[in-house]
């Protein structure tokens, strides 16, 4: 019996190993290929020349800045919209949470092309100036990142005993605004970082909406230079992926370690009479 169990455990481990290695290869091989293609020249071997060339392009700096600004604005707008809404739902209308969760998934099922077509039809006629501004992308990015930001924040709010913390704060003389900024937000640190990370990564890689709405962002720039300087595009893409991953992992790791220090033990939530 125990022998059978050992065999079962062993074969399960092998399957797990195969799955992990396959997934790792699927993730790593394109990155390695990008690196080998982007950081070499046929005659010279290893070289940073393609990257230097791309960075020197007049479109590089403005469009990187553009994308960073858009990412930042998307995060701010998402948080401004979702944090108060979710806090209110958790405190006052928990029965609506399943509906809100279902609604938050809708962006996943509406293709970006359909969204842009609808936006073109609606806004080009009613407010022609709106879509000409690059910042018109922000609301669309908020919609696009909604499922991820919603889940990250919702998980953060479920991890704390929000009602009790708010009641405790109020009983100590703190008004709702102070409670929001002094108690709720600091306890959502990990969730906020995760949501910001997801938004940031998504916006920095978003190509479809930007190109269809005729705006120049960093991903659009990458595609454009990729047409005549594919090595530069590959190198820059890799730097973007790895750089974003490293910076935001460091941020998240720091935030999480601080959060872990202050995480409560599971509260006893026995039903009160």
């Amino acid at each position: 019996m125990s022998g059978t169990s050992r065999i079962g455990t062993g074969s399960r481990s092998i399957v797990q190993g195969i799955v992990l290695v396959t997934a790792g290869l699927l993730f790593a091989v394109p990155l390695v290929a990008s690196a080998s293609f982007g950081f070499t020249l046929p005659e010279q071997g290893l070289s940073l020349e393609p990257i230097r060339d791309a960075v020197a392009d007049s479109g590089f700096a403005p469009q990187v800045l553009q994308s960073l600004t858009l990412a930042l604005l998307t995060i701010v707008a998402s948080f401004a919209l979702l944090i108060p809404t979710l806090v209110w739902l958790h405190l006052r209308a928990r029965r609506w949470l399943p509906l809100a969760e279902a609604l938050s998934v809708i962006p996943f099922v509406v293709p970006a092309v359909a969204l842009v077509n609808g936006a073109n039809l609606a806004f080009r006629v009613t407010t022609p100036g709106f879509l000409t501004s690059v910042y018109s992308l922000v609301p669309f990015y908020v919609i696009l990142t909604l499922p991820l930001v919603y889940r990250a924040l919702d998980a953060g709010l479920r991890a704390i005993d929000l009602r009790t913390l708010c009641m405790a704060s109020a009983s100590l003389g703190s008004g709702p605004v102070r409670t929001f900024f002094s108690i709720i937000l600091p306890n959502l640190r990990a969730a906020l970082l995760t949501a910001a990370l997801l938004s940031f990564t998504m916006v920095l890689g978003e190509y479809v909406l930007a190109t269809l709405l005729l705006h120049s962002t960093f991903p659009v720039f990458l595609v454009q230079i990729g047409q005549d300087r594919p090595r530069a595009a590959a190198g820059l893409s890799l730097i973007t992926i790895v750089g974003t991953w490293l910076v935001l992992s460091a941020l998240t790791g720091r935030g999480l370690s601080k959060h872990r220090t202050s995480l409560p033990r599971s509260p006893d939530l026995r039903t009160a009479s």
Partner: protein
Amino acid sequence: MTGTSADVTLRSISKSYARQSVLNDVDLSIRGGELLAVLGPSGCGKTTALRVIAGLERPDGGTVHIDGSDVTHRRIDKRGIGIVFQAYSLFPHQTATENVAYGLRVRGASRSRRTTRAAELLALVGLVDHGAKYPQQLSGGQQQRVALARAIAIEPRVLLLDEPLSALDAQVRVQLREEIRRIQYEMGTTTVLVTHDQEEALSMADRVAVMRAGRIEQVGTPHEVYRQPTTAFVSSFIGVVNRIPGRVTGAGQVSALTQQLDLATAGYSTGDLVELLVRPEHISIRPESDRPAGATTIDTGVVTALTLRGAISSLTVIFPELPNPIRVDLPSREAQLFERGHRVRLTVHAEDALIDTAAVNQTARVAA
């Protein structure tokens, strides 16, 4: 250390959720400086009553007064109350000191004042060396101590304790119970303790309000609610009670088995079947051969179990005529005289018995 001691009055408070009445015309006066325990089973409305006092719930009807002022529509942060919750409610991102100082910070106290006061209060609750720890680095009992220090840091007019010990293990609970009582006594703050634990209520409170189904059944000192319960519910909810079938045989006369007891029978008719409620320690037990003078005795029973409970032991006695066994408590030294299988006689003193009004004429299965 001095504190404030405000009177709290609830007048005709009612509250319903989804058409289900939770508080039903509740009147309650809490005297300045006293510790009043609101005791009742789960769902009786005791926590709702506390939340109404706190301002966390708005009553459907009635008013809440603190020191004579109507605070029914005043927000929680404007009522001058401190609360310790059942769930651990310390702010996870703040240290123990920061938690205790939070209320003072909200009130604009200087940093030095906050630090000094927090240190004083942590010392008061025995956690002087734990100020720099985060809540998750503290045990449950320590967290509740910090929560108590935080609640009293703002010098509340009324301190509300919402089952603060129910999540703790028995030993810590007893220890913290005594500490809360000591601190409350030193501070003199009017305190309302909500609990379903009768031992907690009886050992800590100056007065106990027993609630049932949204109503207050009895308010009195722990001694009064235990020794002189005014209703059968209070009698059976607090402590252990034996239910002995009987029949009203005339004015002021009830027979239990074949014996007669002098009991107040106003409101009952001759022939009514009743149940007598008698506490285990209010029954004396003697060997079958030993019949005392001047007392009414129930027929002979057989000892079926002896349970040592420390200084007290419980004997379980069965009678062929009774549906349920009778429990008798007596000092363990006296209990040694009895063994399983002994035939015994029980004596019930009429002044210690109460008729269960809810059970009138429902005991026909038992011959009276």
